[in-house]
C-alpha cells in the first residue's frame, strides 16, 4: 500500500525528515507517536503535498504510484487522504457545496458520472450518520467558525465520503472530548477494510485504545527509531520518549 523509502524533507533551510522509511501494507492500521517537533505532522504534510515543504531525496509510493511526482489533487484522486490536525477555515465556500465538488471530482476520476444534488444527499447521508455531524453545519462556510470537535468530525466526514485507500489522521484526537473521540474512533473503525490502510499520528496512547493499531512506530528527529506492537504505545506512555532513545 504505502511504501516510504529514505525520505528527506525540509522547510526553508531546516531539515525535518532525515531519511524516514515506513511500510504500511494494505488493510493495516499503523500509528506514529513521538515527542513534539519530531516531524510527525511534517510527514503528513509532505505526503499530501504541502507547498511549503521541499523533498530533497527519497520516495513515497502508494500502490506503486510515486506520490511525490503528483500534485496535491492528483494524490487525493490516487486514493490518499489527510485528515488535518488544524482543518483550514474557508469563508465563502459552503461546506455541502465543497463536499459535493470533492465527491464529484473523485467520481469523475474513477470514470463515473457526476451526481446531482439529490443523489449527493443520498451519498452523504451514511457518512453524516456515522460521524454524527449537525446538519446545520452543511450549509455553513467550510470549517468557518466550527468548534474544534466539529472540524474533526467534518474531516472524518470527508474521509468517509471520499473512501480513500490510504488515510492519514493527524492528531485526530486533539480537541475532542471523550464522547466525540468515541464517535470519531467508531467512524474510523467502521471504515477499516482489507483494502484500506490508516496512519494515525498522535501524542497519546488514549486514541489507540479506541482505534487499535496493528503496528506502532516511534519517531524522533525525523526518523522512525522504534517499531513494535500496540504494547509499545503503552510502554511509551509509562516511561516517556527518553526511554525509547536510550534503549
Amino acid at each position, binding site marked *: 500500500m504505502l511504501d516510504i523509502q529514505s525520505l528527506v524533507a525540509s522547510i526553508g533551510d531546516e531539515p525535518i525528515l532525515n531519511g524516514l522509511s515506513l511500510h504500511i501494507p494494505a488493510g493495516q492500521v499503523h500509528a506514529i507517536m513521538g515527542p513534539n517537533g519530531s516531524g510527525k505532522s511534517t510527514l503528513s504534510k509532505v505526503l499530501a*503535498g504541502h507547498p511549503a515543504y521541499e523533498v530533497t531525496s527519497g520516495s513515497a509510493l502508494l500502490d506503486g504510484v510515486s506520490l511525490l511526482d503528483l*500534485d496535491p489533487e492528483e494524490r487525493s484522486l490516487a486514493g490518499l487522504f489527510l485528515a488535518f490536525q488544524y482543518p483550514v477555515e474557508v469563508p465563502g465556500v459552503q461546506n455541502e457545496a*465543497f463536499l459535493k465538488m470533492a465527491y464529484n471530482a473523485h467520481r469523475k476520476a474513477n470514470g463515473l458520472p457526476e451526481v446531482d444534488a439529490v443523489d449527493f444527499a443520498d451519498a452523504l447521508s451514511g457518512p453524516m450518520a456515522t460521524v454524527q455531524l449537525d446538519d446545520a453545519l452543511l450549509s455553513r462556510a467550510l470549517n468557518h467558525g466550527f468548534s474544534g470537535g466539529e472540524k474533526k468530525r467534518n474531516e472524518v466526514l470527508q474521509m468517509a465520503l471520499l473512501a480513500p485507500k490510504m488515510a492519514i489522521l493527524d492528531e485526530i484526537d486533539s480537541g475532542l472530548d471523550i464522547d466525540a473521540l468515541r464517535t470519531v474512533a467508531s467512524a474510523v473503525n467502521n471504515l477499516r477494510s482489507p483494502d484500506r490502510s490508516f496512519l494515525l499520528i498522535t501524542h497519546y496512547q488514549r486514541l489507540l485504545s479506541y482505534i487499535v493499531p496493528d503496528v506502532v512506530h516511534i519517531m524522533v528527529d525525523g526518523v522512525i527509531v522504534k517499531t513494535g506492537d500496540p504494547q509499545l504505545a503503552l510502554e511509551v506512555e509509562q516511561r516517556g520518549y527518553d526511554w525509547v532513545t536510550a534503549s
Partner: protein
Amino acid sequence: MIAPSTPVSGLKDPRWLAEWAPLAPLHQLTAPSVSGVGVTGGGLTTTPPSFIWDEWAGDAFPHALTPLGMGHAVWVTPAAHCTVTLTGNVPCCVVIPMAGVGNLTIVNQATAPVGVALWGDINQPVSVSVLHDHTAPVLVTSALRVGSGGNVTIQGVMSQSVCGVMDWTCQLMAPHAHVSIQGLHLGTDRSSLFTRSWLRHDGPDTTATQVVKSVGHGKSYSEYDGTVWVSHGAHGTDSTQRNPNLLLTSGARAVSKPQLRIYADDVTCGHGATVSQVSEDEWWYLRSRGLSRAGAYSLLIEAFIRDSIPTWSGDMAAFQTVLSGYLHAVADPNIGSRHVK
C-alpha cells in the same frame, strides 16, 4: 428638495475622467428622445431634463457629471420595484429621484460613458443595486438624505470598466437611520475602479456599515476613499468601514483611504483594510480533497467575492453573469506550479 451642504467627496477635479470625452456645456443637454440614449425598464417615465439643472445648478451633480461630457440627460422616475437597463451608445447621464423607491436595480450595458445620479429624501427601506459590466467609463453618484424610517442598502458592482467610479454621498438625518454600502471592484487588465463614500451622521443613534471589496488582476487599480463624518450631537452613532482587497497578480494595486471625522462623544466607529493574495493553505486544503488546481483557485476567488455581498438584492441572473464572466476572465489553467517534486 435636497441640497447637501456638505462637500461632495473628491470628484471636483477628476482629470482622469476628462480624457474619455470632451466637456459638454450644460446647456447642450437635450431630451431623452435623442437617438443613442437607451434606457429601458418596467414602470419608467422620463421627462425633459431641464428641471434638473434648475434645481441643481451649481450643486453636486453638474460638477460630478460634466467631466464625462454628458451630451444628453435622462430624467427617470422608477416604479417602487424595477430594473433600469442602460444600453446607449452616446454619452449620457441618467438622473433618478429616489422618493418612493423600494428596490431598484440598475444594469449598465451602455457602450459609451454613462453617469447615473441618484438623489432624494429617503424615509423608507430602500435597496439599490448597480451593476456595471462594460469597458466604457461609468460614474454613479448619489445624494441621499436619510430620515426617520430610512434604511438604505446600496450595492455597487463594477467589472471590466476601464474607468469606473461609484460615489455614495448619504446624510443620516434622523435617529435610527441606517445606511449599508456594499461595493465590489472586479479589476482586469488596466481597469481603474473607485468607490468613494461620504457618510455624514447628523442625527443621534444612526448606523452605517461599509464593506468595499476588490479583486485585482493584470495591472488593475482599485481605490476606496471613504469618509465618515459624525456631527456634533450625533451621539450613539455606529459606523464601520471595511476594505478587503485580493490581489491576484503582482501588477495589480489597491489603495485604501478610510477616514473618520468625529465631532461627537459616545460614538462607535471603526475601519479596517487588508490586502491579501489567495491563501496557500486554503488552496492546498481544497486541492487535497481532489479539487483541481485552477478550479480550487477560482473557487477561492468566488468565495472572497460572495463573502462581500452575501445577499444580492438586485437581479440575481445579471449578477451571476457578471461573476461568471469575471471568473472566466481571470482564470488561468496554469496557475500555481507543482509544489513538491
